[in-house]
């Protein structure tokens, strides 16, 4: 892939809002962000309810309160991450451009399920009252790309706007799309990464699938026992630019994105579509590392979530393709954030690489639920 510079990070996470707050959260033992009493939705009491949410999330201190009325939670998370990312990269200050311009900056981000909150809200009106009472100002929120589209509206970013949806691998795939588009001269900088919002629908769906860890203690993704995932939420958007161009404008480079691979393995005939493929991840990792020095890989920043059916193949693939390299699991801190997962993985990799002397690179991995897998290679800047 064409090397990219990450010149800013906008993080809106359960560990904290802002890059430094996120790093501080990562330096503490995992688990602190999980709550049994979420503020993002009201559910009947359930003993297994444990999610990593941004408690009492309030976007107003970051983006102000004008125009937020009809935006859903997913959009608000993204707006906060976008504003912080652009300011962190020195592209904007106090809402005004200080480097580059509106037609030079784009957005390419992932969400796995869009706004289930908005769909449920409107479905409830249609089912319990009358579809004629649907609020037309809220309807656009049900469309998957709406929340990411709002980022361009709020920040006046006119180069391009794209949404990727590919389950948990989506954010890594968005980095690759951003790289292709920057390489083709469609934008000079792209806000890329992903977002997923906590909602009762998301939690109930994973609960009904039997995918959740519901024990009060002992949950440790990346540890020896996988007994279920815990959901998280957030938005994480990196500002990426052509490496030489970023250095040319004097931007601070937090990391370089130097490799990407993606692969898909179909399920065996007549087997369920839901399957996780070790072979796909092995191929994705090999492809991501093509042309790079494998001995420079200091760590794998994995997608391990605590769910055995996904962790097993991911572990097998990592042992096969990167045996001997330490494997970390940022989802122990942030939970399974699906469309944002790879983006938080990248952010964690940047933080962990800063203090790592075993090598300059981290391979960020993610496996999808239907046979797809992706890997991204991050390098600490020289």
């Amino acid at each position: 892939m064409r090397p990219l510079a990450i010149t800013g990070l906008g993080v809106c996470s359960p560990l904290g809002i802002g890059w430094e707050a996120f790093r501080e959260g990562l330096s503490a033992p995992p688990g602190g962000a999980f709550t049994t009493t979420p503020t993002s939705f009201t559910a009947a009491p359930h003993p297994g309810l444990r999610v990593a949410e941004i408690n009492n999330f309030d976007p107003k201190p970051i983006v102000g309160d004008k125009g937020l009325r009809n935006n859903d939670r997913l959009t608000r998370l993204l707006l906060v991450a976008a504003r912080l990312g652009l300011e962190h990269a020195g592209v904007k200050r106090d809402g005004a451009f200080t480097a580059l311009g509106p037609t030079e900056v784009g957005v390419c981000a992932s969400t796995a399920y869009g706004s289930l909150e908005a769909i449920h809200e409107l479905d409830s009106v249609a089912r319990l009252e009358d579809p004629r009472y649907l609020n037309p100002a809220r309807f656009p929120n049900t469309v998957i790309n709406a929340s990411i589209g709002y980022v361009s509206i709020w920040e006046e970013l006119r180069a391009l706007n794209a949404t990727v949806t590919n389950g948990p691998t989506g954010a890594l795939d968005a980095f690759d799309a951003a790289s292709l588009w920057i390489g083709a001269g469609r934008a000079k900088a792209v806000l890329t990464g992903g977002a997923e919002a906590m909602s009762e629908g998301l939690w109930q769906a994973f609960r009904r699938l039997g995918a959740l860890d519901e024990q009060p203690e002992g949950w440790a993704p990346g540890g020896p026992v996988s007994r279920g995932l815990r959901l998280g939420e957030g938005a994480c958007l990196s500002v990426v630019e052509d490496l030489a161009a970023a250095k040319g404008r004097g931007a601070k480079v937090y990391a370089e994105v130097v490799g990407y691979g993606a692969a898909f393995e179909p399920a065996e005939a007549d087997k369920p579509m839901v399957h996780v493929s070790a072979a796909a991840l092995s191929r994705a990792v090999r492809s991501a590392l093509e042309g790079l020095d494998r001995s420079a890989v200091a760590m794998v920043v994995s997608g391990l979530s605590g769910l055995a059916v996904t962790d097993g193949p991911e572990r097998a693939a990592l042992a096969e393709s990167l045996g001997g390299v330490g494997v970390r699991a940022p989802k122990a801190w942030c939970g399974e954030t699906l469309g944002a997962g790879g983006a938080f993985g990248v952010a964690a990799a940047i933080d962990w690489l800063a203090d790592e002397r075993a090598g300059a690179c981290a391979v960020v991995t993610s496996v999808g639920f239907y046979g797809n897998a992706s890997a991204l290679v991050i390098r600490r800047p020289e």
Partner: protein
Amino acid sequence: MGVVSSIGLGRGAFWQSLVEGRSGTSTISSFDATRLGRTLAAEVQGFVVSDHLTAVETRRAGRCAAFALAAARMAVRDAGLSDSALRSERASVVLGTTMGEADICGMLDARWILEGPDAMSPRVLPKAAPYLVSMETAQGLGCRGTVLTLPAACAAGNYAIGYAADLIRAGRADVVITGAAEMLQELQFAGFVRLGAVAPERCQPFDLDRQGLIVGEGAGVMVLESEEHAVRRGATALAEVGGYGLACDGFHITRPEPSGAGVIHALREAIRRSGLTADEVDFINAHGTGTKANDAVESTAVRAVFGDRRVPISSIKSIIGHCMGAASAIEAVSCVETINSGIYPPTLGYSTVDPECDVAVVANTAGRGRSDVVVNHSLAFGGYDAVVLFAKPDRLPSPEARGDLS
């Protein structure tokens, strides 16, 4: 190429109906829309899933993925592509959609609302993901390369086709199955009605008295190949994908920006990245939704780029409805048919010139003319503007000559 549409299954039936101007609009059969005061849509009727999918796929796939996989299988047959070319790490799937499996999502939500969360079946939940359009297609065809879904609302087809071309040009794939799929669903239909966007009887793009769009559904899928791969297997190219242009209005989530700056940029970029000039464009497949705002802005953009040269323009949404995410993919198929036949499909319902839409509409009956270079417009929710240029094989300058701009 493969098509699932309200006017026919397969590219032959689809094109025949388009040329003859046979509208796909009918009374909605999949849900009762009476209360909404709008009861018409361009619904795909007579689509028997098991005619196109295996028994296992038929049980598993939602309607949107079934449309995508059926159209993909038609496209693969049309291309004469072998199983070995498909079952390869060099074969990818990039599809667009707006909502994916909207009916499954809506059904699960209805059970939850009416009966409680435990009524959501764990057997059904895995079928609801919006990205299953691509996963099911890759699974069905056996592709093993990149598999990606781009939910770019009503520009999703153009986004997918452009990105597929990027993958091939970057040397990352030899073959990409690309296009988009969308299905008609109650909540989304009601939403369009509540936005005031749905016409009571018919869609009349660019007409002074236009009253809005007719919602449609379907899928359009094409097989994109590298030139080298196509030549090696002795395939006949139907058309070449030239450049494409993307822009974002950054203005309003549903309304187009009045100056048309984003569309103008996307259109100019599609032409420039193809190594061509505006003078060389022969035909425009319009986004042409039939809404007041879209058609006026799109006309402004056409005038800004082509000046006084009156390039023939048509909107087949007057025939197949607005198929949302699938729209620009199905319309891409139509563009390629135009390139191959020299026929411009008609814009139905056009009778009164709108001074705000001063463009050369191919009105009511099909036209004929030069068709070497065709552009496909799409404007979408989120302020998305995407234009793809298609050309007759060997019509475009070589990548070397155009400096690999695309």
